[in-house]
């Protein structure tokens, strides 16, 4: 039987605020245990939550970015469950009326010929507080509780069951990860848990329009694990059904060591959260004026910027997509293109190639973010100008790039002068060198005249060697051909 995979994702994005969602305690990462857990966060009696304006502004920003509806009035609810890292015995979340409803995100899946685009519909995004952390290391058979994270603002972003493969789920997660950083609401640090995904996975016979029973894979904190976990889970579900078994709704954890998923809570313990409106919090009102204010401060969004890059710089969809993968990359490219003279589309394409090629490869190898690149967009642009005006060849440019990367000089011109890398484009000078090379290689000349095309390339090679790569390759080809064929 042919199976279809159905995936919906729930993502918790930690919002970039200074203080917690309902208290004035700091949200800074990495503090000593419990020093950032105030009376509200540890749920001492008599405390009351007061909502953080900046957390709401982040939610509005997200709603605008995905084209969702922002509720003029939304409600906070208590989600009740018992766990030691949740000291109140409930999590403050939103249930019936979330702050954002609907919206969508465009994703690109696959590479090269297999690449396709798709739109994932969002169900909702709501504000809630994070729980603390339980440490199960050896505390004489006990668990240690750190409540620093308790009360950190989260935006939980929920999709429709729109994804049909692990690749689509990963593409969506990557696009969302880029977007929340782009609009500045989340730092996207997955190691620190700032961006965590849960995947609801089910399978059904191809062609069926009924959803199968889903299992939820919790806390996927890397794209690689997400791919592995979903692949394993799909295989497991298909095999189980194939063996005549049924899928029971369950929450599962992915174990990166074994590469397997395993059920966490039994059916008997199926959660019943008994949501109800939190009497400690009044309805949240968001005025059209507030929404307009947030909108006016929004950066150009990646999808719009990608379209503009394709239009203004005449870049391919692939190039424009790669350059708008992060806001920092896009800004670097635009700064570089502006300084290099991007009115000329060839120059713009050169900038795109250098940013996506050499620069990105070097940054990857050095594990650096583009914002921390040792050579600025202006310096790279200075080098690209010299390629565009024929001062240096693309090949020589690599040497200039190396020197700039190493911080050897302030700009490309200084490197070109100091090392004598200027391309030789003067016809007279090139002809003199050709004469020397022809005189020194009579055998190749003879072979060429006897009809061996390869001999021509050997002569070009000798010329390049004689000029240390500085000869203008196009001119060399033309002049050499003229000389040999006597035209």
């Amino acid at each position: 039987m042919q199976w279809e995979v159905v995936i919906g994702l729930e993502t918790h994005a930690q919002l970039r605020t200074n203080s917690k969602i309902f208290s004035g305690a700091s949200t800074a990462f990495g503090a000593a245990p419990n020093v950032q857990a105030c009376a509200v966060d540890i749920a001492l009696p008599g405390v009351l939550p007061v909502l953080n304006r900046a957390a709401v502004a982040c939610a509005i920003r997200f709603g605008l970015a995905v084209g969702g509806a922002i509720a003029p009035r939304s409600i906070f609810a208590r989600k009740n469950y018992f766990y030691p890292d949740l000291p109140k015995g409930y999590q403050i979340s939103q249930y019936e009326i979330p702050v954002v409803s609907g919206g969508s995100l465009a994703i690109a899946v696959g590479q090269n010929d297999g690449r396709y685009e798709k739109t994932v519909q969002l169900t909702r995004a709501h504000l809630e507080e994070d729980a603390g952390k339980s440490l199960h290391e050896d505390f004489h058979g006990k668990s240690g509780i750190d409540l620093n994270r308790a009360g950190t603002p989260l935006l939980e972003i929920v999709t429709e069951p729109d994804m049909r493969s692990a690749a689509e789920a990963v593409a969506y997660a990557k696009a969302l990860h880029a977007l929340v950083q782009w609009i500045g609401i989340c730092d996207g640090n997955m190691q620190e848990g700032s961006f965590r995904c849960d995947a609801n996975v089910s399978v059904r016979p191809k062609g069926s329009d009924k959803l199968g029973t889903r299992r939820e894979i919790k806390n996927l904190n890397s794209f690689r694990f997400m791919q592995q976990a979903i692949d394993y889970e799909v295989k497991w579900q298909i095999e189980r059904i194939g063996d005549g078994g049924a899928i029971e709704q369950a929450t599962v954890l992915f174990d990166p060591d074994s590469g397997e998923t395993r059920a966490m809570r039994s059916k008997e313990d199926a959660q019943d959260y008994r949501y109800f409106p939190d009497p400690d919090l009044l309805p949240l009102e968001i005025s059209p004026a507030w929404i307009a204010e947030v909108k006016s401060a929004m950066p150009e969004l990646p999808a719009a910027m990608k379209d503009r890059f394709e239009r203004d710089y005449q870049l391919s969809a692939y190039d424009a997509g790669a350059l708008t993968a992060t806001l920092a990359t896009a800004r670097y490219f635009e700064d570089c293109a502006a300084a290099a003279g991007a009115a000329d589309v060839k120059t713009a394409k050169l900038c795109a190639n250098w940013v996506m090629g050499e620069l990105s490869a070097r940054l990857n190898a050095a594990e650096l973010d583009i914002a921390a690149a040792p050579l600025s967009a202006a310096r790279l642009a200075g080098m690209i100008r010299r390629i565009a005006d024929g001062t240096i060849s693309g090949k020589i440019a690599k040497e200039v790039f190396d020197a700039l990367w190493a911080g050897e000089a302030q700009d490309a011109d200084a490197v070109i002068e100091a090392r004598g890398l200027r391309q030789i484009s003067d016809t007279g000078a090139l002809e003199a060198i050709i004469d020397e090379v022809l005189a020194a290689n009579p055998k190749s000349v003879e072979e060429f005249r006897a009809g061996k095309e390869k001999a021509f390339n050997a002569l070009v090679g000798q010329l390049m060697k004689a000029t240390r790569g500085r000869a203008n390759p196009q001119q060399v080809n033309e002049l050499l051909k003229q000389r040999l064929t006597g035209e």
Partner: protein
Amino acid sequence: MPLNLDQIARIARLSRIEISAAEAAQTRDQLNGVFALIEQLQAVDTRGIAPMAHAMDLTQRLREDVVTEEDRRAAYQAVAPEVEAGLYLVPRVVE
């Protein structure tokens, strides 16, 4: 729709409350009394009326995003049954 004893046991479990068989029966009767009151309320026709989220007709006041709390861990942990390395210790919980 009166509650039965199985439902009482489930609610007690979700609430992490241990109750004896006698208490369960008593709780069932008390909760069913509350439910009778709710049934009266539910008999009112509320079509076209927005659900009320709060008893007060006010909206949420917002805080500016400023850190105002300082570290008071030592005071908070002075009343905790057991702490170590800055952590609150609790009976082991592993799912």
